[in-house]
């Protein structure tokens, strides 16, 4: 059962990832990207961590995909994208991806993942929170600093001089 679900999820995730890259229509591409991100949420569900899966859905599908969709709808595609048919770049890209996949796969296979027993109960999210506040606190602080920095940067980028609008009378 789990194997069938895993296979279906893999097909959905990888298939929609390829579709997201290759589709000509940007809207359909971003819908395919949503499929990829949702498929990853499905993998998290299979791995007995519904907490992470729900955050994956809420953050990636619910927010980031919406932002991508929003941006894509507001641009004129012809103005910013020019399709360059370059076979060599494509093959180099695929080769690079294969190298990365082999390297990552070998690292993951060596990390002892095969000896993990899979019938353990789902990880309690309270433990995740406790770990974050005790053992992994430097990571938490680092994340907080990065987030604060990016929010500040976004605010500075979004700041503008107040334009006087002649049409408004109030």
């Amino acid at each position, binding site marked *: 059962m789990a194997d069938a679900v895993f296979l279906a999820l893999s097909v959905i995730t990888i298939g929609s990832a390829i579709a997201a890259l290759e589709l000509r229509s940007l*809207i359909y591409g971003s819908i395919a990207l949503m499929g990829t991100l949702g498929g990853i949420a499905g993998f998290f569900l299979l791995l007995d961590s*519904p907490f992470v899966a*729900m955050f994956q859905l809420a953050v990636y599908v*619910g927010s980031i995909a*919406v932002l991508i969709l*929003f941006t894509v*709808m507001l641009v004129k595609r012809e103005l910013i994208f020019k399709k360059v048919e370059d076979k060599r770049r494509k093959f180099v890209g695929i080769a690079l991806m294969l190298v990365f996949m082999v390297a990552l796969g070998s690292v993951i296979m060596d990390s002892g993942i095969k000896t993990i027993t899979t019938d353990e109960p789902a990880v309690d*999210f309270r433990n995740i929170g406790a770990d974050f506040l005790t053992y992994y606190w430097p990571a938490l602080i680092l994340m907080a600093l990065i987030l604060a920095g990016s929010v500040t940067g976004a605010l500075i980028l979004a700041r503008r001089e107040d334009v006087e609008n002649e049409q408004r009378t109030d």
Partner: protein
Amino acid sequence: MSVIAPNFKFSEFVKSILDNVFWILLIFALIGLPAIQIILFYIEMPVIDGELLTPFLALTWLADPSRTLPILKAFMTTDLFKIAAFPGFGFAALLAAGTIFIERKMLAKLQLRVGPFYCGKIEGILQLMGDGLKLISKEIIIPAKADKPIFWAAPVIFVATAAAFVALIPVAPGWVVADVDVGLLAVFAIIGFFPIITILSAWSSNSKFPFIGGIRALHQMVSFEIPLILSLLGVVILTGTLNLSEIVASQSNFPWIIFLPIGAIIFFITILAELERIPFDLPEAESEIVAGWLTEFSGMIYGLVQLGTYLKLYAFAALFVVLFLGGWTGPMIWPPFPEEIITDGIVMGPITVKIPGLPIFSQEMLNGVVWFVIKTVGVIFFILLPRGVFPRIRIDMLLSLGWYKLIGLAFVNIFIALGLLYAGVLGPGGIL
């Protein structure tokens, strides 16, 4: 009075019905029954209590009232019943239909109109059915150069997402479709799908007004999702769980609205914005952009979107009840099932009928459902009420309300919850 069918004769009508019945019976006897026999010949029937379950036996059991109730009770524990009928879609759709009628009638009274009046003779109670029949019978018009797959899929996905939201709501103890540990997070994840569906359907119709409405809906929903999530964190901090059933069970003594009134108010305002109701109905502003992102929908597609909208309204009202008003908890007002019917059976003169399997529902469950429905209807009333009172606000006012005021207030609410927790008043190990 207009004449719908001028050549209508009642005798002809009866004759046509009898004609149809005759042909249906004839075709069933000649083709249907042999087909069933052939199918039954190849199916292996199960053995129950040492008896082979023949079709005759199955029909006997179904017709026997002493066996019907246990079969019915067994059916009510299945997932199919839960999804389709009671805590799931059917129950929610019933409440949603009631909501539509009450809304129209109440708005009319508020604005000194009559409202639906003629359908069904008594205060227009059949208006909804008439509207439904009208929507089903109308043609579905798809705009030229519309993106057809998305245009067709969006209403269906909208209803499905609203139904998924409904499935997470616990109605009575143990009566919930999906009792997940991370229920509240699942709610957040599902809420995140609504803006995507809205903007995709708006874009796919290839028309100006829907697109403007869709962009407005996206702005509004995305900016009000953040205070919505933040306003619920107070409840999570105090209960220490994300499971909605456990959150309800934690309010057996007092509802959280007593301690977190600010969170409840923020959540209520964000509900209004997420549901696109007045005063936040900019995406459907009928005096500016026709009907917003619903402009190009017609026929049953429009009906599906409306169904989804009202299912969403029910789900949000129920979520408010679950999180802040104590869900199904309340004093016992449902009378207990009379004991003598279980022990002695129903005595009618010389005849005594013993019905095994009674009572169908426990007293706690019925009482919980009554309290849940009363509270939910109350919250729905308060969601409907601003429509008769407030004007529509500008979009810059909407966004500044969402981003500045509500998020700030949500943090105040979180600090109140943390203060109550660390002062040892509430929460795990608190004095209350």
